[in-house]
């Protein structure tokens, strides 16, 4: 067992005994085999000495047990690293930033404490997964949805704290935005409640986010200032119906008004589902392209030739699918209004898409699953708040991918919501692909994968392999791409521990004023530096590089 740096065996043993006293010996893991289960299954360091590994793990069941563990760690200066369900794969999994940390595994804290249909809100513990929550809603026949990300095994709390997102209505897609109130164990073991939760006998903890005074919830996301033990969420009332429609436009430059009109429609609340830009011509994340086009793109065919090809084939140059949730008549009217707006683009054509009434039947859910698995552009399960692992086919062995990868790491920059930014990003990624020999838009065109209210996210999965030399090269390339993005004023919204320092280095305005502020906070609220050292580049004083 690896000891935390600077901790003697005797001190570590004393701390472990106190952990055992707090949670029961069955829930303190120290054997090599048990501790190995806390490795990052997708670690880009696998098989290398630099792999970040735990020294032990402790799994409390109650808030009081968390407090006791944190107090013992604080007394003995033992570094802890908190995980919820530990399934943040592609973004670090269950492994710590700092080798030798004891993983504070909150999976056993899996209580759904309250679900209010009338307030469309919930209060949960960190171990509750999207699968657990969906099962609960189904069993209790509640008319609410929880917005979920692609993999259903993640934690509602963990995902929100890592700024994860989903696919339903704008208000709920950004999971941290959709939260309301937290309970946090501080580094000294003290219990804190935020927002209205700070009022004894609070009646509105999940109803109003801010309470009075500074709103501090953001400090506990992508950070290491406390251990979140409860979190409230706002749920989406099950709508009456769902509708999609697609607009296609013929010219390359049409993307400019297409995105601008889309922005207007979304920012006005007329389009309330997650849109999807596409190019029937150029392909992208969801639409692979054929060989004829591939050849045209490889020889940099002029735009006019591509436009002529699109016309000949009867496909648009760009498409945009807009999605609506609400009363059937209202959303039909909204779609008609969208068509009026998009018709400002000469040559725009429209296609009615899918319609669903809720609740979905079992046969409809199976059809949606089948279409999603086939990679079609039609509606997917998370758009209806249904968690699954269907998207986990990325990298898995399939008929067309006979050599599965050993994992992946996500490169996910935030890009402005304009066509000009999309064009520029594609130029930059194409150049970086060539220069670094990485699969970022090597052929074809990249369009946003995720749509926040005011920003796009591009998403590229870089493979993790079994070969340390290849992984080492890919890590260096990843860091290069982060730098290239930053040179253009873009940065990532989320990243694996391996790159958290590199990414936070790009948030460097005014000589890293943001990092210095984080460090000032860290020193104040966790002076012994016991909580998740290194998370998002925030190191305690004794581990800080001078």
């Amino acid at each position, binding site marked *: 067992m690896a000891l935390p740096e600077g901790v003697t065996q005797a001190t570590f043993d004393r701390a472990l005994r106190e952990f055992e006293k707090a949670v029961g010996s069955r829930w303190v893991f120290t054997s090599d085999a048990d501790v190995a289960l806390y490795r990052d299954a997708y670690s880009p360091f696998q098989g290398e000495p630099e792999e970040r590994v735990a020294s032990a793990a402790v799994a409390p069941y109650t808030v009081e047990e968390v407090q006791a563990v944190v107090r013992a760690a604080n007394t003995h200066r033992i570094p802890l690293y908190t995980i919820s369900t530990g399934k943040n794969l592609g973004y670090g999994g269950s492994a710590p930033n700092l080798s030798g940390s004891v993983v504070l595994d909150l999976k056993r804290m899996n209580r759904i404490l309250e679900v209010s249909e009338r307030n469309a809100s919930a209060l949960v513990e960190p171990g509750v997964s999207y699968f657990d929550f969906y099962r609960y809603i189904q069993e209790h026949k509640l008319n609410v949805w929880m917005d979920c990300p692609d993999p259903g095994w993640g934690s509602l709390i963990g995902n929100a704290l890592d700024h994860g997102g989903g696919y339903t209505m704008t208000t709920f897609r950004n999971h941290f935005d959709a939260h309301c109130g937290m309970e946090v164990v501080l580094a000294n073991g003290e219990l804190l409640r935020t927002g209205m939760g700070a009022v004894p006998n609070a009646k509105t903890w999940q109803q109003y986010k801010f309470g009075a005074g500074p709103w501090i919830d953001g400090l506990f996301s992508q950070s290491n200032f406390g251990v979140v033990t409860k979190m409230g969420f706002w749920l989406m009332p099950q709508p009456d119906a769902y509708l999609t429609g697609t607009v296609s436009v013929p010219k390359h430059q049409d993307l400019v008004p297409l995105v601008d009109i889309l922005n207007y429609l979304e920012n006005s609340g007329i389009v309330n589902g997650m849109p999807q830009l596409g190019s029937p011509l150029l392909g992208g994340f969801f639409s692979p392209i054929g060989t004829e086009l591939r050849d045209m793109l490889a020889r940099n065919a002029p735009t006019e030739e591509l436009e002529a090809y699109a016309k000949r084939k009867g496909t648009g140059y760009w498409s945009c699918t807009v999605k609506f949730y609400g009363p059937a008549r209202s959303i039909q009217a909204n779609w008609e209004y969208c068509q009026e707006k998009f018709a400002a683009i000469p040559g725009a054509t429209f296609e009615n898409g899918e319609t669903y009434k809720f609740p979905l039947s079992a046969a409809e859910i199976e059809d949606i699953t089948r279409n999603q698995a086939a990679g079609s552009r039609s509606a997917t399960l998370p758009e209806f708040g249904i968690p699954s692992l269907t998207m986990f086919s990325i990298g898995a*062995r399939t008929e067309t991918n006979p050599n599965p990868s050993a994992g992946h790491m996500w490169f996910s920059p935030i890009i402005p919501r304009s066509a000009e930014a999309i064009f520029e990003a594609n130029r930059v990624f194409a150049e970086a692909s060539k220069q670094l020999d990485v699969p970022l838009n090597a052929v074809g065109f990249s369009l946003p994968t995720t749509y926040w209210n005011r920003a796009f996210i591009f998403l590229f999965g870089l493979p993790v392999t079994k070969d340390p030399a290849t992984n080492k090269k890919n890590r260096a390339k990843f860091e290069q791409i982060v730098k290239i993005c930053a040179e253009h004023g873009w940065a990532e919204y989320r990243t694996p521990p391996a790159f958290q320092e590199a990414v936070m280095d790009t948030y460097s305005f005014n000589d890293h004023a943001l990092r210095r502020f984080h460090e000032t906070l860290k020193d104040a609220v966790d002076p012994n530096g016991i909580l998740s050292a290194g998370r998002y580049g925030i190191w305690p004083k004794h581990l800080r590089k001078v």
Partner: protein
Amino acid sequence: MTKRANIGGAAALLCVALAVAAPAAAQQPIDGKAVFEKWCAPCHGDGPGKPGTNALQALYKGAKPALLEKRTDLPPDLTKQFVRTGVSVMPFFRKTEISDAELDALAKYLAHK
């Protein structure tokens, strides 16, 4: 209507007691099929959109069933090994997710198929 989970207040204390009483809990029979449904079926179940089932179909090309529940050649140790070491993009599972007792039940369930 507000629904509260059963586990709250006094019920939570009861669960703490049960969780601490590990030997007693271990003697209770665990339904291996239920463990499969909860932890394995989202990837290895029947129907569309199951990456694990698809991967085994691609691997065996019909020489063996792609569905784990249809296999007749899964000794308990093999199941345990895959759960605790993972393979390809399938991660390993911690004991706070699938306990040793649950893994025993799961391995027996798949072995008896």
